């Protein structure tokens, strides 16, 4: 197991380096000069050149790359080109907890809906209950998360005044405000996520319920609840875990639309705003973190397999 983990970590570093390198050169190949755009209204023709020289952006690209890699190896991701040149590590360190909180909350909501819905749908296959859950799942999948977010704001913030419309409260402000600010955005994200998961759990459960060991379990006289939850559900989780892992990683980096709707600056928004501004250091740093999240989640999924199915061994 240890050597497996070591191999995976080394592999992860190679993947992250490859992604970071690709992004570094692609960014510079994309048209759009950040300094020209930033100083468009200033009107000082030399200001952009002064800053370009100061930030080293007038050096050959390979020199910029070598310097960046050297700095990254020393834990320095650089600083934003815009405004007061805030360090990228600070920007990411501030955004990461927000994204993590949002993703976790959405995940909890999604699982709370998807697991019972998926199991009941599978066990009560082709009954009105199954059709009802299927309909709700398609509804959840069909609603764009930003639209659902806006509807939730209008209903729960504007009309009912139950929850705040926008913003994020860190835990340091108390658990209550933290949860209050997360409920609506997490529901907006978690709904579509739960629909996917419910469908996955249903189909996986249906496969497993046909297996011989389920018949054996029933013939042993086990109660149906135990057959379903202990034997069927646990075995149905293997493909679900794979999807959950990837979906959670996507959630970490891709909740940008909902982040915009609820004015939460998470990792996704850092990345998108960096790309729109051509803020090279921010994009490079954020991509590095996002790729690390994907690699880590894949690793977590692989390790989880061994706990769910002891027959799987990692080498």
């Amino acid at each position, binding site marked *: 197991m240890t050597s497996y983990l070591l191999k995976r970590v080394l592999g992860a570093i190679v993947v992250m380096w490859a992604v970071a390198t690709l992004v570094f050169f692609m960014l510079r190949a994309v048209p759009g000069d950040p300094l020209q755009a930033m100083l468009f209204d200033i009107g000082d023709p030399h200001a952009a050149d002064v800053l370009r020289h100061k930030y080293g952006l007038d050096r050959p690209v390979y020199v910029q790359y070598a310097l960046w890699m050297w700095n990254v190896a020393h834990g320095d991701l650089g600083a934003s080109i815009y405004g007061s040149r805030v360090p990228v590590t600070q920007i990411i360190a501030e955004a990461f907890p927000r994204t993590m909180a949002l993703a976790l909350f959405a995940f909890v909501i999604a699982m709370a809906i998807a697991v019972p819905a998926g199991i009941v749908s599978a066990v009560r296959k082709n009954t009105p209950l199954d059709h009802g859950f299927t309909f709700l799942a398609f509804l959840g999948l069909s609603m764009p998360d930003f639209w659902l977010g806006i509807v939730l704001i209008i209903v729960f913030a504007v009309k009912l005044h139950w929850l705040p419309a*926008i913003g994020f409260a860190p835990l340091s402000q108390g658990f209550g405000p933290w949860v209050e600010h997360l409920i609506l955005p997490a529901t907006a994200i978690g709904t579509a996520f739960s629909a996917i998961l419910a469908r996955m759990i249903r189909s996986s459960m249906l496969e497993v319920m046909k297996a011989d060991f389920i018949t054996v379990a029933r013939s042993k006289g086990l109660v149906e609840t135990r057959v379903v939850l202990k034997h069927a559900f646990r075995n149905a989780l293997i493909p679900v875990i794979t999807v959950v892992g990837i979906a959670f990683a996507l959630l970490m980096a891709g909740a940008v639309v909902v982040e915009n709707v609820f004015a939460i600056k998470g990792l996704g928004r850092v990345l998108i705003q960096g790309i729109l501004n051509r803020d090279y250091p921010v994009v490079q740093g954020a991509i590095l973190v996002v790729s690390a999240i994907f690699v880590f989640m894949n690793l977590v999924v692989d390790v989880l397999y061994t706990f769910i199915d002891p027959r799987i061994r990692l080498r």
Partner: protein
Amino acid sequence: MGKDPNDTDAAKRRTLEREIEEAKEFDPEDPLFGLTVEELSGPRLSRRAVLRLMAAAGALSALRFAPGLGDVAYAQGTAGGHLKAGWAGTGEIQTLDPAQINQVLEFQIASNVLSGLTHINPKLVAEGDLAETWTVTPDGLHYTFKLRQGVTFHNGDPFTADDVLYTFNRSKNPDLSIQSSVLAGVDNVVKVDDHTVRFDLKAPQASFLVKVLERSSGRAMAIVNKRAIEEMGASAYGLMPVGTGPFKVTAHQLGQGVELEKFADYYDPSRPKLDKVTITPIVEPEPLAAAIEAGDIQIIGGNPPAAELIDRFVANPDLVVSQIPGPGFQSLWLNPWKDPMRVPDFDKPFSELVKEKGFMVRLAIAKAFDRADLIKRALFGRGVPAFGSINPAMGYFYDDAIDGTSEQRFDVAAAQKLLADAGFPGGKGFPTMKLTITPAGRREGQIIADILKRNLGITVELDAKDFPVLIEEFDANNYDMLRVGSGGDYDPDDGLVDWMLTTSKFNGPKRDKATEAFGYFSDKEVDSLTAQERVEPDLAKRKALVQQANKITSDKVASAFLYHPLDILVYRKEIVYPAESRIPGLVDLDRVSFA
């Protein structure tokens, strides 16, 4: 029986007009603009002196729309309270360091945290802020300021002349500040004693007190704290600057918001009234609207709210919508180096130019726009038709008649005839044009494309580009048609010098100069008229020169001018923000209170 308010307004307007006319009467050779040394000295300029200085600076026009020349109503609500503000159209407040600020939405906040030597009051009078009094020499070259004593920074440091010198040296260094060009007219700053400084100017500058020293528009001289910058570093200082202003920054998480708290030791104990202000950047229009409707935010600052929301806000009895003309123009730029709009030489009389096919096409496009219809559809009626870069907020210089005299005035039959004469009857054979827009401008782009299709039979495809790419293509002349415009234009030079000269900073600076003699427009007469108006001290003459140059740029289609936007402020009814306190572009929170 009460007095008819209309009579009062008319009387005030007559008085104002008389004062403005009087303000323009001075000897242009006089370095003090007809004022005495006493009149030019502080702590507070007289109304007459301010009007005269503004006349000399060409800024009198702004008075037409500026509040404060009638009765001034300061915030009258109760003290205390926590104001929650939404800053529209932005994902983050990138910096509050005056040396790095390049957006209005940033200096709107910084102006509440940092002080200048002067600040405009609601009457647009440059009052002493950190300067208590000042004198000026008869040649108008030396301003000596007595600084306010007993003022402290938010970190407890005393404010002295050294802080003025430190700020000046930092701001004029292009490595440390992007505002160095603002100080180009200042030769030197001398510390006379701990609480006295002298500014030596290279030449008399009527707008000096406002344009250079004022804390928001002049941001180069918004006073910063040396110790805080050295201890915090420039990056951290940019997020949480330490100043002497009415509010101090207590928290700033990039993208999540800024928190301000009342500075208890502010030199004016009567201000601010609010205890705390939270500013949240909100990118999307719908959540912004929901937030103010739900009461999660109580005022909208930053970029103007999306036009489609304004009717909704107006209809909401809980909200106040304040609308005044904005200082800017928006244009459709037509590349003169691309067929069939090609005009490589504008230096001809209009009568000759109009015989050229490329020019006929340009004029046909410009004439095909019913600006009122465009404004109604794209801006929900909130804009003023544009026929030049000189905007209505410039009042005195604005040509009220240009909508009737410009060759660009709407005439669809004439536009169709021009296009037919150019060889494209009904748009037949006209190549498909690409219109470069930002993603946010897609809706307006579709309306422009629809108008050109409907009125001229021209097909326009939208080409959405991120702002940095759009600017790069504009600068390099790499477009067919492109939508971009200007804001913050208070002086004719902001329109003519910045945009309409052959050497203007936006006029294709990155183009291939070997094959393209200019970017989008070049006319020797406009260059000459603009060179004259820049130095013309006689207001009436300057106005004539400005309007003449503006008319040529309009007639010769430097661009298809579309509209001048409005400046719109929205807040909830429980907020007291007297309309008379409002200066276009600024959100002075020390004048805001709860009802």
